[in-house]
């Protein structure tokens, strides 16, 4: 899914993509980016603890929240879950919620709330339609980020 998101974003001319594990992302990575697309597995119907810690660190470790340093950056979300109805939408919405509280501009793409894939026994692996959704999400986020950046420099 992340690879698809990256491919979609790179399809927008002028876009560079930095792909990293949440635990290895620094405050500088976040503040120097124009857009952030967070991906999480579904754990017990919500984002994983590792991803929640990542968001908590935006204030606890990186001090990005106090001065709203993520303000007007563009955000998106994608999720993978074992079941068809296991919490993928909740996961994406809680990721987008954390971004909204940081005054980011959240956008959808692919699916209604972002891109998602069902990976459990009913639908093992990630199929081409799900990869295509993730590409759409990456492309949309990069397009909106370029629009915002272009508008803010005029």
């Amino acid at each position, binding site marked *: 899914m992340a690879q698809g*998101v990256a491919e979609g974003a790179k399809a927008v001319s*002028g876009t*560079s993509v930095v792909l990293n*594990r949440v635990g290895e992302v620094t405050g500088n990575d976040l503040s120097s*980016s*124009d857009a*952030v697309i967070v*991906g999480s597995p579904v754990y017990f119907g919500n984002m994983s603890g590792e991803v929640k810690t990542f968001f908590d660190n935006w204030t606890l470790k990186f001090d990005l929240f106090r001065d709203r340093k993520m303000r007007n950056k563009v955000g998106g979300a994608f999720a993978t879950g074992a079941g068809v109805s296991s919490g993928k939408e909740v996961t994406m919405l809680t990721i987008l919620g954390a971004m909204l509280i940081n005054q980011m501009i959240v956008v959808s793409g692919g699916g209604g709330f972002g891109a998602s894939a069902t990976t459990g026994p009913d639908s093992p692996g990630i199929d081409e339609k799900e990869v295509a959704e993730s590409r759409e999400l990456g492309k949309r986020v990069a397009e909106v980020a370029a629009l915002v950046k272009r508008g803010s420099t005029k």
Partner: protein
Amino acid sequence: MNRRKLLKGAGVLSTAAMVLALYGNLGDAADPTPVTVLVPLG
């Protein structure tokens, strides 16, 4: 240059100017906005 050619030339130029004014944004086409997208994975 006769009057007919002069008028035709002026017409072509004004049409080109109008098309550029309406649709032209050569700066954007030549210089895509550099954007960095971070993709953190859980």
